[in-house]
């Protein structure tokens, strides 16, 4: 049974914001709402700078679901946390509860009018007819129903951001960490153009070095 999760590899993220752009474009997210964003720590410090792409983590025990006063959240069979915008009252409790700052609220007008909550849907749409215009307008593209993964993960150039079934994501990450090298072994010529010779194997795991 699939449990959809994101994982961002801080060793690979190059802060290109391709995931943010892909999300904005795919779901036509309005100004002021960022379903995904890249957070950088130690910005500008050589060797210590790390970036990570953050959005809704689709928690197994989601605090937003727990605190919602109108119970507009639900979890799909494949573990994606979604909500019904027709029911949301825009109170902002979910924003306070979320440790990742995932819930976003469109603001407009002179008095900072707060709209209904908007957040990452794992490109799974919402409680409207799949692939319908209404669903797209309210929640964005439903890529899962098209057999695709979230646009942010599929667009990631260094494949730092992985998305999909948690077990498969963990397997990919585990194997990657065991074989982790630096420079072109991580991303570069070999990754872009292939191994060069038929039958070539991926780089061996480095000896005596922590990855």
């Amino acid at each position, binding site marked *: 049974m699939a449990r959809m999760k994101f994982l961002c590899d801080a060793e690979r993220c190059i802060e290109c914001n391709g995931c943010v752009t892909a999300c904005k474009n795919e779901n036509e997210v309005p100004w002021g709402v960022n379903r995904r964003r890249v957070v950088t720590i130690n910005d500008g410090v050589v060797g210590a700078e790390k970036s990570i792409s953050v959005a809704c983590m689709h928690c197994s025990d989601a605090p937003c679901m727990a605190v919602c006063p109108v119970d*507009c959240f639900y979890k*799909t069979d494949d573990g994606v946390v979604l909500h019904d915008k027709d029911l949301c009252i825009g109170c902002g409790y979910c924003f306070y509860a979320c440790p990742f700052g995932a819930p976003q609220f469109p603001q407009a007008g002179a008095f900072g009018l707060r709209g209904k909550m908007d957040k990452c849907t794992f490109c*799974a749409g919402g409680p409207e007819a*799949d692939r319908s215009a209404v669903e797209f307008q309210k929640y964005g593209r439903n890529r899962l129903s098209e*057999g695709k993964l979230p646009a942010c993960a599929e667009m990631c150039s260094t494949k730092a951001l*992985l*998305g999909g*079934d948690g077990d498969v994501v963990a397997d990919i990450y585990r*194997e990657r960490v065991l074989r982790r090298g630096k420079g072109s072994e991580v991303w570069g010529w070999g990754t872009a153009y292939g191994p060069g010779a038929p039958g070539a194997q991926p780089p061996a795991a480095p000896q005596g070095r922590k990855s």
Partner: protein
Amino acid sequence: MKGALALLVTLAVLAVSACGEREQTTEFKRGKYQGKPDSPSWSNAPLAYESGKWTQGDRASWEESIKNRQLAQHEHKRIYQ
């Protein structure tokens, strides 16, 4: 006498009229999703192009299709095969 009785009945009806007021709030069950139902991803047919292959309504085949797509994120699987 009849007039007084009619007046009494009218007053009694008016007095309890508020008791017949309809419930104006939706039925709320704490901790339970209150919104519209959603359909699962595998209930849709695959697209003609740029989409995996699965049988409509079959969860296992949809999950297999998604898993295959996921493995494209693994460059070792993508390049060295």
